[in-house]
């Protein structure tokens, strides 16, 4: 997220969920774009914040994903996690952003809150290398187990590394 000029929009402050988050985390950065409310919560408070929002009616976890801001102009942090929340009763959505940095990007797992986060967090670990503390089974999801890199990071090239010709060919005699 860039340094948005819409941060001080009065509508954002009126949102009761944002008010509740401010009570929990102190000041939070909140903005809207195309009627989508986004709130940045500190990494150490992310589990508390999401647990609060779950109790406030956001019962459906739509997605957990991540953005690598390595080459993004004006970005202050390396990784930005995205939690998309929705409600199954009223139609409301909220995006929660959590920023983490190298060398050990770590955030609390939300599997205790939503089982849906299990595979989504595994995918983020696989492709971005962000550790989720408290995750029951943090294995790679889509890449092979012996893979060493995290390919959706911006410093990983589109072509070249990790392609088929880089891997040793196992013949029948040597297997």
């Amino acid at each position, binding site marked *: 997220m860039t340094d948005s000029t819409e941060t001080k929009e009065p509508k954002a402050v009126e949102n009761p969920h944002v008010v509740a988050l401010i009570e929990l985390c102190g000041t939070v950065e909140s903005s809207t774009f*195309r009627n989508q409310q986004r709130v940045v919560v500190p990494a150490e408070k992310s589990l508390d914040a999401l647990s609060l929002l779950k109790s406030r009616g956001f019962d459906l976890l739509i997605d957990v994903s991540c953005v690598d801001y390595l080459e993004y102009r004006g970005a202050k942090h390396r990784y930005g996690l995205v939690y998309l929340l929705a409600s199954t009763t009223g139609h409301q959505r909220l995006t929660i952003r959590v920023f983490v940095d190298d060398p050990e990007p770590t955030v609390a797992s939300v599997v205790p809150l939503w089982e849906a986060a299990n595979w989504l967090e595994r995918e983020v670990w696989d492709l971005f290398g962000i550790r989720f503390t408290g995750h029951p089974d943090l294995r790679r999801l889509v890449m092979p187990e012996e893979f060493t890199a995290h390919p959706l990071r911006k410093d990983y090239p589109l072509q070249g590394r990790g392609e088929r010709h880089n891997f040793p060919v196992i013949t029948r005699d040597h297997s």
Partner: protein
Amino acid sequence: MAIAPTEIETPSEARSEDYLWTLNFGPQHPATHTTLRLVLKLEGERVVDAVPEMGYLHSGFEKIGEHLTFNQYVTVTDRMNYISPMANNVAWHHSVETLLGIDLTPRCTYIRTIVAELARISDHLLSNGAVGLDTGAFTYFLYAFYQREVIYDIFETLCGARFTNSYTRVGGVSQDFTPLVIEKTRAFLKTFPKTLNDMERLLNRNRIFVDRTKGVGLLTKEEAINRGATGPVARASGVTRDLRRDDPYLAYSDFDFQVSCASAGDCYARYLVRMQEMRESLKIVEQAIENLPSGPVDVGIDERMALPTKKQVYSTIEGTISHFELSMSNRGFEVPCEEAYAAIEAPNGELGFYLVGDGGEQAYRARCRPPSVLNFAMFPHLIRGHTLSDVVAVLGSLNIIAAELDR
């Protein structure tokens, strides 16, 4: 060195796990339909545990999304959920237009609604047909597949491609509806309900089918929400969430339709929900095709978002400028340095894209929220305690498409 007999540790009694049989199901198996793997732990014929494995079709679609322009990437979305590619096209460009802030013309919203609903029908035909096929109802599958051909024919007349349509464009669609497309769609609307009745008569009260699907793969409402289920899987468990009604995108607020739900949460309920959704989709298509607004299908030249027609390029100065601006590699769309998420109710559930724009031609990040991943993740929960033959019924009723699963 020989080992003395006393050194070998003999367990006094075998552990209960020793009797379990590990069965590798897939990645190449006719009943997995696509490339996915299950490691099943069996006690006799009963499944004690299942470990799903995925990634066999991982092709880095999200990485490719950071290197293709917004109009180019639509060809990749065709390959995600390839049994309803039109819905993916609509989802992708719905997200792109949310990020860019484009308002579509009324005709375009109607056309996209029609193709998305036809895609839903063709998806449900295949997924229900496959459940029938896996549980032994081969005739049913052929009835379903024949109707898919009719929908393919409509798409072929519309955009030239039967399977990988790549139909949408930023701010519009690649081809406008012609009278022939409308005629073919009307003919489909007339003939399809009859086949749908036949299909329901074939399977709804078929003893073998009902016995194999009723009470199998139970998903309660609480678990459905907890595990992030969307689409028919959630609605069969009593979650009345449908983005078409709750967050009307495109032209859905203009139409009269019902959200199909069931409360049982088993494979049979998921089958029934899909059958009913096809009828509702027919209603939507019928209303849309009869009230199709006239006017341009792409957004105006002045917005510089959709490529102008050849006639506009050659006969108007605005058309020439717009074509130049969009075609030159150092120009193109005005992309805000912002992030947006937009989703549609795809046949399988909520299909959305989280897009990050950095001012460039391509997305900085193009995250796809695939419904199949969350559906597949709940598979062990659904199959525990059932028999090996129920694996294919549950797998079919979740409608997992590995290309969308792995991306």
